[in-house]
């Protein structure tokens, strides 16, 4: 409350636009890296020797799903802010929308995963389905009773249909909400109509969002081992997505502020709230992660324990222990400090750290499956089942850098398209003067 009270005189009447010449260099480097990386990656995914193609499919899946969770999280925060009728975050809401708007573009990087040449290394169940010529269900009845029972959900047309649904439905949701929000920026007679409309059209999309985060997790990640299942899988991925998309939002806001944008409208109070949300989801992630482990550990059912059996073997076990402390204990203690959350620079350091832990989390979700599945699917090429595949790590880095650079490019492009905060939103002054 000590700072200056923001009035409408402080709000940029025609919006606060990103100076594109300042970010042109970062943007073109990101684009260059992304294009080059994509070309190399496409070669590695489709034309390289099988011994490279197999492991790299997992690298691509890891990188794709990591950045997809960030984009989906952006949609989530937009929806939550609208549907909860919030006023605090109006000045940073455009960043939520911009992050969410990367969703359809990031999803395009999943296109290779729709090709059978790539799927054959990832999804054993699809191979079994494709072996059938003619009646798939009849074939499964003879080959694998589990897949026969799961046929109603795990079948190729439905799988492709769901993939299309994620892209179209959630893409339409964020496109519509962002358009509704940015149209207000230039409206000569801004009123509350769009605000109420955005609130209304954010409630049922929460269901679309929940289906997307849950079932992309089922289809792309849980499907790696068709025998394994976890009822907490969707909420586990959601916890990580919400936490880390907030970390990205904190980073973007800090970056914009350091360039002189978001002046007057965002301050320590906003970062304090965003830090609190990060804290909340750090705790929530730990709660869900532990609950998932705990249920599987206690029940001790063969189909369920396979996940932790793979990941608690060899060096993966060290990484899993590290995840417990690195993803929960350390950020929990650090984010308890109120003064730290009010400082954008310090909070950004925590945000970068959290994103590193998210990368480790997703690495441990996808990659330990690689040595096991490849050995199971094509032992004549990949040899016996092994804990990890030597040298495949470089592919993981390549895929991560490629999609990461593309993500940065898409995000900066989105930031440059409209005003950086909804300057004619009825709640902008309420948000600018927020105190908590």
């Amino acid at each position: 409350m000590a700072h200056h009270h923001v009035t409408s005189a402080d709000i940029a009447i025609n919006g606060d636009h990103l100076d594109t010449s300042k970010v042109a260099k970062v943007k073109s480097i990101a684009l260059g890296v992304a294009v080059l990386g994509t070309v190399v990656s496409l070669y590695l995914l489709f034309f390289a020797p099988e011994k490279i193609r197999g492991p790299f499919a997992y690298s691509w899946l890891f990188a794709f799903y990591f950045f997809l969770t960030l984009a989906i999280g952006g949609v989530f925060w937009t929806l939550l802010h609208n549907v909860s009728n919030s006023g605090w975050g109006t000045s940073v809401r455009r960043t939520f929308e911009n992050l969410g708007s990367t969703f359809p573009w990031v999803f395009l990087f999943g296109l290779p995963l729709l090709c059978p040449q790539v799927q054959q290394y990832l999804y054993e169940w699809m191979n079994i389905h494709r072996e059938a010529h003619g009646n798939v269900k009849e074939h499964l009845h003879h080959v694998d009773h589990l897949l026969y029972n799961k046929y109603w959900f795990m079948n190729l047309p439905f799988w492709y249909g769901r993939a299309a649904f994620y892209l179209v439905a959630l893409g339409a949701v964020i496109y519509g909400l962002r358009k509704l929000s940015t149209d207000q920026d230039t409206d000569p007679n801004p009123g509350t109509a769009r605000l109420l409309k955005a609130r209304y059209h954010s409630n049922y999309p929460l269901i679309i969002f929940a289906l997307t985060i849950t079932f992309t997790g089922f289809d792309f990640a849980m499907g790696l081992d068709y025998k394994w299942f976890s009822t907490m899988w969707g909420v586990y991925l959601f916890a990580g997505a919400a936490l880390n998309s907030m970390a990205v939002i904190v980073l973007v806001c800090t970056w914009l502020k350091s360039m002189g944008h978001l002046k007057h409208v965002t301050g320590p109070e906003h970062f304090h709230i965003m830090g609190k949300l990060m804290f909340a989801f750090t705790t929530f992630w730990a709660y869900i992660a532990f609950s998932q482990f705990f249920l599987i550990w206690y029940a001790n059912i063969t189909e369920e324990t396979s996940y932790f059996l793979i990941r608690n073997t060899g060096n993966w076990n060290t990484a899993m222990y590290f995840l417990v402390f690195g993803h929960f204990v350390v950020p929990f203690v650090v984010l308890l400090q109120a003064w730290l959350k009010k400082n954008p620079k310090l909070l950004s350091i925590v945000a970068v750290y959290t994103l590193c832990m998210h990368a480790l989390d997703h690495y441990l979700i996808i990659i330990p499956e690689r040595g096991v599945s490849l050995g199971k699917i094509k032992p004549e090429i990949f040899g016996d089942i092994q804990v990890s595949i030597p040298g495949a790590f470089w592919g993981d880095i390549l895929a991560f850098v490629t999609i990461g650079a593309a993500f940065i490019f898409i995000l900066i492009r989105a930031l440059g398209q409209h005003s950086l905060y909804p300057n004619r939103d009825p709640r902008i002054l309420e948000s600018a003067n927020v105190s908590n």
Partner: protein
Amino acid sequence: MSITRKRVYGYLAEFKSASALYKGAEKIRDAGFKKWDCYSPYPVHGLDSAMGMKRSILPWFVFFGGMTGTATAFALAYSTQVVIYPTIVQAKPANIFTVPAFFPIMFELTILFSGFTVLFGLLALIQLPRLNHPLFASRQFHRATDDGFFIAIEARDPKFSPNETRDLLADIGGSNIELVEEED
């Protein structure tokens, strides 16, 4: 006429509104007073910083209270389930790696002990329960629970002076300024 000995508690001044109270509090804070307090029928947002109040020590009590809870639960579960009477369920080990099974208890006792420390630590810090408060001697003070906003500056504050403090309260918008006396 009463023959009870009386002692000056301090000055009580009424303010017109929450915002007048807030602005008055900032001025008294800047004047350097330490032993004083605001009274309002409802919580006033940001009043703690206007009063220049330091952060409470309570979180530290709670932290150590919670840690005691965690340690107690672990000691309890470990000593009974591993050392004294190892319980083997589904061939799971009874050793330090059984710790996931103890987590719910460790979590619950952390919360329980934290909760207790919050309650009893808070009561100790604000010195409740107490039977009486010197300000209850004031006839106008009961309005603090209805529509009155008050500031009371205690006489034991080193900056207190019978005339200047009254003038200060009047300057910053206080009305119905009253010297409250408590029975000794």
